[in-house]
């Protein structure tokens, strides 16, 4: 979590990784790791 003073608590997506199965792993430095799948 961004703990610097006077920083808004907002989405801060940082990186994305797509594995061989097509699952999407995305980091956000205010919100942890999210794992998603594409529905086409």
């Amino acid at each position, binding site marked *: 979590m961004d703990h610097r003073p006077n920083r808004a608590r907002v989405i801060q997506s940082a990186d994305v*990784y797509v594995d061989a199965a097509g699952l999407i792993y995305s980091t956000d430095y205010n919100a942890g790791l999210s794992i998603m799948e*594409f*529905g086409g």
Partner: protein
Amino acid sequence: MSELPGPDYARNMRLIGHSDQGGRPDGVQVMVHRGFAYVGHMFSKGWSVIDVCDPKRPRAVNYVPAPPGTWNIHLQTHDDLLLVVHAKDMFAAAEFADERSYYRGQLGQIVGTAQGRGAARDWRRVFDIADPFRPSKSGRSCPRRQRA
């Protein structure tokens, strides 16, 4: 595992799993390798290993702290190895007490790396991740070579 947050908007995408990374949600670079996600941290100063063999139930299994004065925002997996960059923690640097400094001038000149100052803090370390639950140091490379 944390409860799945609801998206404000989603189309053709479905959130199936979420992790607060063992209470260190400040994830930056992520590499997924053999069922484990390796996540570098900006504020927690280190990197975490998340078991994603079941992506609906990701589970933090390890955390490795960064050396003092550094952060881990870049890492790379290969076979049984994980390359981690211990770069200068810019938010702890006096030069960036005023964040606007980051966006002015040349970064290397501001933090001194362009002149070789602070280079000793800029290390790359290799970890053996054959056992992701117990990563171990397998070696350490030299600081980036300075330009002549």
